[in-house]
């Protein structure tokens, strides 16, 4: 997935992920990243089955699967410093790897850190097969207007942070999710990603304000958002709550939720059976994801404090 990402072949990334029976967390992350670059995150995110297998690492590899994709996801989410941070930590623990060196070079270019970017480009250029990347990135160091012409990097800048003093520690990890769930304002480009992050995390309390902003902007609500709002209304005011979204939620949505409720009824005491039996007909619907997928409490990451070395 990283190789396809380097080629910016977002369609191939999506195809690769969707062909898998049980994609890992890393594959799911890169799938989401590819959708993000195609502005299709809310339309396609829940087409993927989210039942992550346990991944075993060799002794000398990072023990945490998040470290494999955090830098790339951070960068795609516009979190340049966080991407650099994660890539650098990987470099410290596992040694120089060209993929992360490129991430750090991109971060340095986006941050306007000219000499740092040149350092990384100099190291990359000494390696065979890396000339094309260097030829693409290096001119942007001295001519930052070229960034806007680059598909990948211009996308990153669009997502940019507006808050002057945010620290990573203020947000849940992984930061690309936590930040998107925690922010209270931002550019339009971030709004969809932010809504998707809330839906993925099943934090409907955080999601609702984002849906309200969609309404204020008169943006159509994708199916997953409509379903999420109906799910939310079941415990928070019902039809009264949904009035504010009148016209944006299709009558089909409530029927869909009702149909799911009927199908799920025989399996409420057996979550594994629920997911297995309903997957065929319901994969792709947010209501299926909300009740059946990504339910393993062991996979919730705990926040740790930062020590100094």
């Amino acid at each position: 997935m990283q190789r396809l990402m380097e080629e910016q072949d977002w369609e191939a990334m999506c195809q690769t992920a969707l062909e898998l029976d049980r994609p890992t967390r890393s594959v799911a992350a890169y799938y989401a990243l590819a959708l993000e670059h195609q502005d299709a995150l809310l339309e396609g995110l829940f087409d993927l089955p989210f039942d992550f297998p346990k991944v075993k690492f060799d002794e000398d590899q990072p023990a945490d699967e998040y470290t494999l994709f955090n830098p790339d996801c951070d960068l795609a989410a516009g979190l340049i410093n966080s991407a650099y941070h994660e890539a650098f930590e990987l470099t410290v623990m596992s040694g120089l790897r060209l993929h992360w060196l490129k991430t750090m070079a991109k971060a340095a270019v986006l941050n306007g850190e000219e000499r740092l970017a040149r350092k990384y480009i100099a190291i990359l250029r000494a390696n065979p097969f890396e000339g094309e990347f260097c030829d693409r990135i290096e001119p942007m160091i001295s001519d930052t207007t070229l960034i806007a012409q680059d598909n990948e990097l211009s996308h990153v800048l669009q997502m940019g942070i507006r808050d002057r003093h945010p620290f990573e520690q203020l947000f849940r990890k992984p930061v690309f999710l936590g930040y998107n769930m925690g922010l209270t304002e931002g550019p339009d480009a971030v709004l969809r990603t932010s809504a998707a992050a809330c839906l993925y995390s099943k934090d409907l309390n955080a999601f609702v304000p984002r849906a309200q902003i969609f309404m204020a902007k008169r943006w159509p609500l994708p199916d997953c958002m409509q379903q999420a709002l109906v799910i939310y209304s079941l415990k928070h005011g019902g039809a009264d709550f949904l009035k504010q979204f009148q016209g944006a939620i299709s009558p089909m949505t409530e029927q869909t939720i009702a149909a799911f409720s009927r199908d799920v009824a025989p399996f409420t005491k057996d979550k594994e059976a629920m997911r297995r039996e309903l997957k065929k007909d319901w994969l792709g619907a947010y209501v299926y994801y909300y009740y059946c997928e990504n339910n393993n409490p062991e996979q919730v990451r705990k926040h740790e404090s930062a020590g100094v070395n």
Partner: protein
Amino acid sequence: MKRYTFYLYIVAAVLCISCKPEVKVPEGARAVEETAVIYPDYRDVTIPPNIAPLNFLTENAGDAFVAAIEGQGESLVAAAGSDGKLQFDAVAWTALLSANKGQRLTVTLYAKRDGEWVSLPAWHLDVAQEPIDRYLSYRLIEPSYELYRQLGLYQRDLESFDEFVIYENNRSYEEEHNHCINCHNYQGYDTRRMLFHVRANHGGTIFVDNGKVRKMNMKVDSVLSNCVYPTWHPSQPWVVFSSNLTGQAFQMQHKDKIEVVDYGSDLVFFDVEHNTLTNILKTRTDMETFPCWSPDGRKLFYCSAHMPRFENTPDSVHADIVLASYDSIRYNIYSMDFDPQTHRFSQPRLEVRCDSMGLSATVPRVSPDGKYLLFTLGQFGQFHIWHSSSDQWVKNLETGDIYPLTESNSPEQDSYHTWSSNARWFVFSSRREDGNFTRPAIAYFGPDGKARKAFILPQQDPEYHRLFFKSYNVPELTRSRVSVSPEQFRQVIYDDEATGQAVYKP
């Protein structure tokens, strides 16, 4: 015969590919008005007479290059191919500098273009009379965030390119033994008495005293936390440490990527012979740190930030208070007189009021001649290697004048510093290269109280610092080499059962 001829052609081809011009000043070179662009920037710097060659590379156009250094009675020439790397013969360099102490050398760069030689405008190197202490210690570690793997303490012989290992933590990584090492410190520029900390696994403080090595657990009740920043008394077996509660936060937007903060710090006195630890300053609303003895051992300088909000709030929220106001926390510099008979300190006296300047001080260091106080100022906080605003300042302890060392400062981080024992040089941590990777910068400090332009630690390959992936931490000059071997250190570090325990003395 045919095979022999074939090999002859191969050898000739290889020689041509790596061709350097003859090592002599080209005749009939045409002067051009084009600035020599060299890396590292060794133009117009003052250098010690005992420094290793300042090899450099040029980024000017050319198929071949020659650099000629002219002095009184001596000259030196180096040549380079298209890679532009000019490396001077070490023996000839030493002779040149020895013959030109107190004199100015002229450096001229020649470039060969389309078969013709051109000469670029010359620059100079001023050779000081005064040498620099021969050895520079430092820690090599990535400019990293939380994780570490392979790091070590090293000593560089400044008169050559030799670097010696003091101690390295991991040759092969084992999580159960992984440890960090930091805060190496020496007494009076002499390595016979030194210390450094070991953190995490096998933690403790390593003390060396004339070849004897031991590890001590410095954590005691009644002291805030572990012992951190050290300062050896210049002659007695006493060390003052700060004891700090430290954390860090990672900026999501600012290019000063990490904010290291203290949310509590005090000063403690350690008697090395009796293993006793005593609080000097243990205050709730002041954070005292970065202690430094005066050269005569009768005064202690340190930094302190006042935190009134700590008074009526529980300790558990102090870190939050600090993080919420990190960019308005400012440290001033104080001093206290010390009575070596009674081990008592006087009331603190304000030396430099930095907060009223809108600035914050770290690492006060008195020059060995007792005349100047060197310190780092940044816009806020106390870990200035992560603050691009940081610069070196001095206070003239005789006149009270306070001013920045403009000639040696850079637009990027200029921080942690060490004086040479003759007070004519200082080495400091600088990120002037790229804002992220720390390099030792060396600068002359004249009797006039002014610094000269700093230069980066020379390396045999002039491109070294550009490619090197570690930072140099805590540069410390010494006159001697560390005599304890890495293996001796390892034995002591890994022997947890033999770890001594510091004892609190009220």
